[in-house]
């Protein structure tokens, strides 16, 4: 019996004789004994953006075993990219993660630029940073909705997803697209900021902060939320390396790993990014950490809007993109998405098509190894909250 269930379900301390015994850390489950029920959570469920199912075995209402199944969203992007020219790969990658497509766009462009030795103009770097930070805000707003929805507070989800729509409006003005932006093309960005954009963005920052105050009062200060999320899904510092945990999930237990600070890319070395960490490691501390992170992103967007150059080129001189051959080589570029380390590993062989492109999504371990471990000995009703608190995005698991 784990420490977690001792703390959380005090009544269970008395008699565990009806629960399965554990051998080598794994419960011994005999499904024919009629003591256990096997059931599925998913593939459709609230909060997790995409389809992913968890096959669970419950004893009463306590989960004794969980196994993640993916494959509902496999679109074979990596294979498709092997058969396409470099520029044709670009519109594919944003589909790898729907709520936050810009990280993929940036990374695939950055990998191509590094292999082809192209220098991106200063102004384009600023515009890319602005775009990435805005996408972090949009993704986090959707996450708050998921976390609140998983606890039955659908109203908060409607507030934040409504506010996310205003951010999507800004994206539409900036890039022409609401969900998939295809903005950070290899060599720079596609468009300059439209007239009046900065004023609208500043207004929206104020409105978002006002909404976040409401969210704090009704969600993070809520006794029901605290009692359900505190002590749920505790990640310990030992688990971070063992399971490859990254992003807010790792920072919530004290691991200082934020790629914007550790390996600054774009203009992050000139911006005032702070390492936000916590030491508790449970679902509530992760929620608080993400809440602080949105405020940091709002600060960064205001700072970028002040410092973005008015004049300057936004696109580097590029070769004919329809016949663009990149010299042989390989690279790994990474960026901090809202879920953690997001990376692209690209191998080129000197032809006009990549030899291999691999997208490393943070959810790959969070949704499988980590979720399967943390779901043991929690209540069935807490599983949705746990899944959302790990902030998984199934499309980036199977690409």
């Amino acid at each position, binding site marked *: 019996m784990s420490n977690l269930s001792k703390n959380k379900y005090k009544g269970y301390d008395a008699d565990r004789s009806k629960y399965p015994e554990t051998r080598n850390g794994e419960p011994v489950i005999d499904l024919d004994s009629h003591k256990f029920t096997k059931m599925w959570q998913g593939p459709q469920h609230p909060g997790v953006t995409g389809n992913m199912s968890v096959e669970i075995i419950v004893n009463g209402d306590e989960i004794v075993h969980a196994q993640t199944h993916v494959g509902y969203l496999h679109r074979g992007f990596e294979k498709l990219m092997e058969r396409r020219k470099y520029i044709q790969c670009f519109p594919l990658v944003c589909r790898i993660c729907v709520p936050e497509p810009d990280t993929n766009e940036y990374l695939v462009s950055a990998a191509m630029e590094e292999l082809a030795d192209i220098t991106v103009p200063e102004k384009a770097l600023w515009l890319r940073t602005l775009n990435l930070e805005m996408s972090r805000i949009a993704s986090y707003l959707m996450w708050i909705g998921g976390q609140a929805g998983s606890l039955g507070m659908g109203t908060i989800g409607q507030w934040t997803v409504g506010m996310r729509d205003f951010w999507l409006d800004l994206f539409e003005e900036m890039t022409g697209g609401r969900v998939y932006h295809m903005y950070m093309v290899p060599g720079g960005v596609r468009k300059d900021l439209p007239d009046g954009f900065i004023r609208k963005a500043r207004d929206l920052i104020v409105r978002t902060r006002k909404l976040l105050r409401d969210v704090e009062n009704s969600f993070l200060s809520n006794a029901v939320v605290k009692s359900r999320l505190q002590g749920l899904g505790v990640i310990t510092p030992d688990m971070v*390396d*063992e399971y*490859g945990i990254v992003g807010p999930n790792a920072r919530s237990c004290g691991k200082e790993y934020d790629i914007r600070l550790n390996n600054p890319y774009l203009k992050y070395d000139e911006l005032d990014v702070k390492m936000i960490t916590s030491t508790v490691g449970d679902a509530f501390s992760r929620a608080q950490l993400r809440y602080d992170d949105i405020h940091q992103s709002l600060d960064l967007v205001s700072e970028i809007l002040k410092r973005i150059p008015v004049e300057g080129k936004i696109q580097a001189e590029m070769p004919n993109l329809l016949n663009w051959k990149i010299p042989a080589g390989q*690279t*790994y570029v990474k960026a901090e998405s809202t879920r953690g380390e997001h990376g692209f590993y690209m191998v080129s062989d000197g032809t006009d098509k990549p*030899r291999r492109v691999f997208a490393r999504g943070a959810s*790959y371990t969070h949704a499988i190894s980590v979720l399967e471990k943390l779901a043991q000995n929690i209540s069935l009703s807490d599983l949705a909250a746990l899944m959302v608190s790990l902030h998984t995005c199934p499309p980036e698991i199977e690409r």
Partner: protein
Amino acid sequence: MEQLIKKINGMIRLRAYKKQRESLHFFTVEEAQLEMILSHLKNYEGFTHLAFLQAVDFIEDGKFQLTYMLYNYETKMNIGVLTLIDREEAETASIHKLWAHAWQYQREIHEMYGIDFPGSPRVKESFVLEGWEEMPPMRRDFDTKEYSERTFYQRPGRSTNDPAEYMKEKLYRNYPQSPAIRRDDE
């Protein structure tokens, strides 16, 4: 970093080394020494974070390249440890005892490339392709077009047009001298 490379070169003879940028280095090791090098990097050199493990198919050489991407939180360096394994008898040692999440990558590589990792948990389980009976699809000799033509069929009553032909027929028929169809690169 140069010191580390020298040290590792003293332990084993590196087959290749490349500095991609200040914070990213690649080196190639023999397959037999791979586990030892990874364990050394993890336990003594601080490369404790396994970012990913992936395979690349170099069909023209008859080899698969395995890439183990490690990260050191202290020095903020990435190392890509590469190894080449034989394409015909694709099998290599499992590292699930070094990193608890490595089995996931090994399961995916087994499914997508047919590389076996003996002893790795759940390695034979299907990852995304349930009931797949063809050759592993990420191998470069897997013909996606042939497979889709064999497996799927056109919806009845539907005709397709070649876009280039269609455009010439519909739009440029009256303008044979139009620059749109007399471009230099055609």
